[in-house]
């Protein structure tokens, strides 16, 4: 599809507007969308300035952090903080080094799993989860302590990572512990 505005570039952004109860969809290229879309400014910001991370830290919307996270992951090969595996190393040996790898490489997983498996979503037996909640809570506690220390030592990049990890676990805790039978 071609951008509705410049009529030259490929349209990659869909903007849905609801005006007086009628829904309108418009398709723009990234350049043109940037001119219309109110959030585009932030997308084009330098992703890894400490200033930026600090302002994220102070409570700007979460969705923006996620976008940034993705940009970062595409740019630099991530390394698993627990076992030191890189994605390339995983491809080489065909095995993960630890359970944490599944989080670290979550974005790269679907194509791998699609090739090997029927789907990318588990539908079988679930675990009892009795100890899981306890475990996650302990983990969060440890991470929070590390986080405080990182802030105290002004290691803001580490702090940001630790915060993301804490949030990921909190999310699991909210989804997991309660409703599994």
């Amino acid at each position, binding site marked *: 599809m071609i951008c509705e505005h410049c009529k030259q570039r490929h349209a990659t952004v869909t903007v849905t507007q609801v005006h007086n109860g009628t829904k309108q969809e418009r398709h723009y290229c990234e350049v043109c969308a940037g001119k219309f879309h109110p959030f585009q400014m932030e997308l084009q910001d330098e992703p890894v300035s400490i200033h930026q991370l600090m302002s994220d830290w102070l409570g700007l919307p979460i969705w923006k952090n996620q976008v940034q996270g993705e940009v970062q992951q595409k740019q630099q090969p991530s390394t698993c903080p627990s076992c030191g595996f890189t994605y390339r190393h995983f491809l080489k040996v*065909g095995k*993960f080094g630890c359970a944490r790898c599944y989080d670290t490489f979550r974005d790269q997983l679907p194509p791998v799993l699609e090739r090997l*498996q029927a789907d990318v979503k588990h539908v079988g037996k679930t675990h009892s989860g009795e100890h899981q909640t306890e475990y996650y809570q302990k983990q969060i506690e440890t991470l929070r302590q590390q986080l405080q220390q990182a802030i105290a030592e002004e290691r803001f990049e580490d702090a940001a990572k630790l915060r993301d990890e804490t949030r990921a676990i909190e999310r699991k805790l909210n989804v997991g512990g309660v409703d599994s039978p």
Partner: protein
Amino acid sequence: MNIEHFLKNTSPSWIEGSEDYSDIVMSTRIRLARNLNGFRFPITFSEEEAKQVDESVLQVLLSVKEEGPKFSYFPMKEMPSLQRQVLVEKHLISPHLAKREKTASVFLTEDESISIMVNEEDHIRIQCLAAGLQLHETYAKASKLDQCLDKELMYAYDEQLGFLTSCPTNVGTGLRASVMMHLPALTMTKKMNVLIQTMARLGMVVRGIYGEGSENLGNIYQISNQITLGKSEQEILDELQNVVEQVIQKERQARQQLFARAPIALEDRLYRSLGILKYARILTSEEAASCLSNVRLAVDLQIISDISLSQLNECMLLIQPGFIQQYAGTMLQAAERDIFRAKLLQEKLQIQEQNESTVRGKGEDLYDV
């Protein structure tokens, strides 16, 4: 339970046979892969972590309540390599576990129907074996044990991906269900290659029973599910059951066709194999396996009736290098093994012969009188 029991016993519970389809399906195996939270996978973990994992599984399994299965615990480090090899040949441990350098162990029940490997590729691998085709029953057994462990330990589990495993080919259910099948007629009529390809398209893998590379030694194939994620345990088992039943039908048809087309030629071939097993002085494992396969087919077709299936199952185990050396009581070169193999098989089949002659002796006495 002493390790000697597991090394000497050549007729564990799952070898008895006599369940449904026991003429074609030799045994069923269910394996569940599980990992513990907070420890890296065995591929990267430290010796310290290995010990802790081993310790925590040990505590749970040895404190299993009265009604639960009773386990004997064997650390790999203390086991001589020949003993390990015998356990590998009995499918009680994997070759991978036998080679581990860090702390690793195996838990076995007395009847050898359950084996739990610790620190193999994953922290825990629960394995249940049964005779004949019993996919659902065997899974139920494994699953019950899995729940016991789940209560006491913290499994690495992800809401989206299920049970996390070192290899992404096991993630999700962690379930690998395998069925060991004896398919001589399909092999003789050269239908296996097409069948293997068809099964691959249905998400099933076919391997030789004596491990990778031993393709179809003794015409025994192991069929197992490939997919572990995106399907429930029930679906996986149902699909495998379905495929296996179809293969059974095909094998039976092929047997009937073979027998109908050239009964004497077939009988000749099968009896010759029995002759080789009884009178040869040197037997390679390939020849022994193929002769045993023929005799087994003859028993199934009721051409030969004085040898039992369980006896043949036992011989199938005994012809492997580890067992031969265990029998000889010493390490042997390949050529020496072939001599011992012939001797061992003769002994096993001779026992039957003696019984036979005593029966006939009595008969003759009666006739004379």
